[in-house]
């Protein structure tokens, strides 16, 4: 009987606990993206909230041009108060778990992200998997300006872009988690993708006046994700362009892209090589007191497109050499830009730190300097898709 009571009591304690914060899903304002800007008084937070489609309207499918989102802007001396002030404007409780994109204005980024990062890291609902973007301009504009969008919200558009941009390898978006991890490592600096709005169609002579269609003449802009923002700790210091960004991504080993090279011996015709697999190996040695970092990059390539009709696959050794040169150039460009900005997005410093912390502390003040980098790129053309040569012209047969 005693044991029965004990068992009953222990089972009963199960029910003293439970999950917290019961809230119906339709009582929430689900945030899709948030933009952070600086003002004179402090901070301005613009949130993009999903407008849940009503049950009748849902399920149309296809490409919806119109955004189904609702914007609200809160301001205050700190990020947290700015977000609190949003409750004066949003009739439902803000819900951050589904927020997929954090957009930082360039001005904020240059002055430091500490407050934003702190809010995000501290809040139990906000997820570290949110993507971090730097916008060249006032971040709120990205939400307020109209541009051609495929997804319902800017947040979803950006989340999609972050995935697809991996294919091109011109920019890499880091999540807030990756950003915070990079910050926590000695000798590594975070970086993330930059956004820019550029005109898609410009009708000369007419002024952009808002929501008018092309006939009456207005500038339609499109969103581009083709920059890489470099940070020194939490502060934005500069940008990498497309080619430089690729140099960075080769070292990170996340690239799956095309390399365009000139056909050997035929100046005008260009061919593309697709990267099927890439692996990279970093090693560090010390020689004469100077750390020697070797970056070995091995690329498995495939012929993706060609202009000439020759069976170029047969000349793969020369293709491989050309590809190696291209990649090497990109690597060097990225490294020299990083050195110029005095940041280390590659994490070479961290590599030295893990091997030899004392040496790192010696190098740290002048970092990224006093190090020799050896780039070793090996490329191998492995396949040529489903065809051997290019389209054959009749006379060549």
């Amino acid at each position, binding site marked *: 009987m005693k044991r029965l009571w004990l068992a009953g009591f222990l089972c009963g304690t199960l029910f003293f*606990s439970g999950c917290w914060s019961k809230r119906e899903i339709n009582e929430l304002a689900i945030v899709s993206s948030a933009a952070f800007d600086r003002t004179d008084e402090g901070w301005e937070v613009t949130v993009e909230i999903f407008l849940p489609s009503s049950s009748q309207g849902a399920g149309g499918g296809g490409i919806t041009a119109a955004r189904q989102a609702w914007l609200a802007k809160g301001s205050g001396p700190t990020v947290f108060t700015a977000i609190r002030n949003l409750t004066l404007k949003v009739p439902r409780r803000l*819900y951050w778990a589904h927020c997929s994109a954090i957009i930082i204005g360039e001005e904020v980024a240059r002055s430091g992200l500490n407050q934003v990062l702190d809010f995000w890291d501290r809040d139990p609902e906000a997820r570290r998997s949110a993507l971090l973007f730097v916008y060249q301009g006032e971040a709120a504009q990205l939400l307020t300006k109209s541009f051609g969008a495929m997804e319902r919200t800017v947040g979803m558009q950006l989340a999609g872009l972050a995935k697809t941009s991996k294919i091109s390898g011109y920019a890499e978006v880091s999540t807030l988690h990756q950003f915070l991890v990079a910050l926590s490592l000695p000798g590594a600096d975070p970086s993330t993708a930059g956004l820019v709005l550029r005109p898609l169609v410009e009708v000369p002579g007419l002024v952009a006046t808002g929501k008018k269609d092309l006939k009456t003449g207005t500038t339609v802009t499109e969103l581009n994700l083709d920059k890489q923002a470099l940070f020194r700790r939490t502060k934005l210091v500069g940008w990498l362009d497309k080619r430089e960004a690729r140099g960075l991504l080769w070292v990170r080993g996340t690239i799956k892209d095309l390399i365009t090279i000139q056909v050997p011996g035929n100046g005008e015709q260009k061919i593309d090589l697709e990267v099927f697999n890439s692996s990279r190996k970093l090693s560090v040695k010390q020689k004469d007191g100077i750390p020697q970092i070797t970056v070995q990059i091995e690329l498995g390539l495939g012929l993706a497109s060609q202009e000439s009709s020759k069976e170029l696959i047969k000349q793969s050794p020369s293709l491989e050499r050309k590809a190696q040169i291209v990649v090497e150039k990109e690597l060097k460009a990225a490294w020299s830009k990083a050195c110029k900005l005095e940041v280390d997005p590659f994490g070479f410093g961290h590599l030295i730190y893990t091997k030899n912390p004392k040496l790192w502390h010696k190098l740290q003040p002048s970092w990224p300097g006093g190090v020799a980098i050896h780039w070793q790129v090996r490329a191998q053309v492995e396949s040529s898709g489903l065809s051997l040569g290019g389209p054959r012209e009749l006379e060549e047969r």
Partner: protein
Amino acid sequence: MRLPFFSKRKQEQKKEEFSPSDLAQRQVEQKTKLRSSAKDNAEALQELMGKDNADFTTRELTIPTTPSVEAQLCFCETMIDATALNKQILEPLLLSVREIALRELPGKSVAEKIGRNLLLAGKLQNFQFKDEVLSAALGGQVVLFLEGSEIAMGVELRKIPERAIVEPQSETVLRGPREGFTECLSDNKSLLRVRIKSGKLRFDSFRIGRISENEGAVIYLEGIANPKLIREIKRRIKSLDVDMVADSSVLEKLIEDHPLLVFPTTLFTERPDLVEFALTEGRVGVMLENSPACLIAPANFFDFFKTAEDNYIRWPYTSFIRSIRLLAGLVSIWAPATYIAITTFHREMLPTALALSIAGARENVPFPAFVEAFSMELILELVLEAGVRLPSPIGQSIGIVGAVVLGQAAVSAQIVSPFLVIVVAITSLSSFVVPLFVAERGVRLLRFPLMILGATMGLYGIMAGMAGIVAVQTAMTSFGQPYFAPLAPFWPRTLTDIIFNPPIWMANKRPKWLRPGNRRRQDFVVRDWAQDGENPDGEVDLSGE
């Protein structure tokens, strides 16, 4: 007939060993012997049955032998075959015995002479006591009293309304035998006997019900079923003291280990082939007159996910569909509770797009998810109950009411969200996938407490509730055998039995948890032809010669 207060005697009875003719034993105690006067006997019997009882008949006759014998026939006319009575008893006794000298017939007494030589009956019973005679007459025997004999003779001429042997509605198969038990116990016995032509198949009969004196049988295979199990089942049945047992389902509730819980611990089937499978596994069946369902014990939780057809279709599909059924069993309990928990506590677990469409669907729904789900589940139960209760032509229209009015209209009136309708539909669908749960609807009730837990404590609550349910299940037994067997106690080697149904030539052993008297079912080599050295690949050359 029975004393109202016989608890004392009942206890004495409990100590006695179970015997097949339990009723006969009880009657020996009331030793009212028959008299030698046939007329007295018949009148006494009539008195016991009530003077004006319409279905009891006594017929006076004189058997025209030399010398003639006065006799009385007593029978229940509603229970016997009148043609057979004329042919087998009246004709030989009244017509064909003229000018036969009684003393020339072999036999000692008059009764023996007539019984041995004149009655056309396969089974002839002699009775000494009044109560024996009464129950024989009520059971469909024609009783013959002879003047000057203290022994009555009974001839079984039973004919009662019966229905045809049809395929049981709840256990239909595409492949396999299509016969089912009926309400007639002897027919059911013969259905089983036809399948198992072995002397080891035993029907140990018993009687149950103070008033109804219903006949039943404990069915098992001697040497295969565990003798202790047989003893235990008989002990439980024998100790019962009830007015009547209308159906084997009532008996089930009287003898099962856990009558208060929603989980059934005995299987039941109306299919003789399933009983055959169960008996050869070492289980014991219990059948009752007037009930087409045979109880099978012991039963395991996972047995409830098996169907009649499992043994007849190919094993990969059986195994696949069985895992689907297990999943469906869980879904039928979990689905609405999980819907509530996730939409009110764990929004972050949903993919963004799904969260949005649920939020959008719930946008104009005035009730919290719990009220919404709970009331829809209640309404579903209403629809089901109405569909079962109504005669089938009207019953079908209930489905339309349920689907159109409650599904379509409730959504467009925005009382419930379309997502919930999907959840409710999936719940009911999956609860009907589980074969025996269909009949044992009690298990489906568990989703209501789980919904409350889900609404108050989220997924944590559901898990806590499930922990409780599983804890109860692991503690349960079915006639002493563990109810949650290959999982708890954990028997890794038989674990696959939950889902896999191996081909019969691989199932060489009987299930361990049944603790059969003999675990070996057959030799390791069942298909000897496949072992044949001459023909290793099983290729058969039919050409030539």
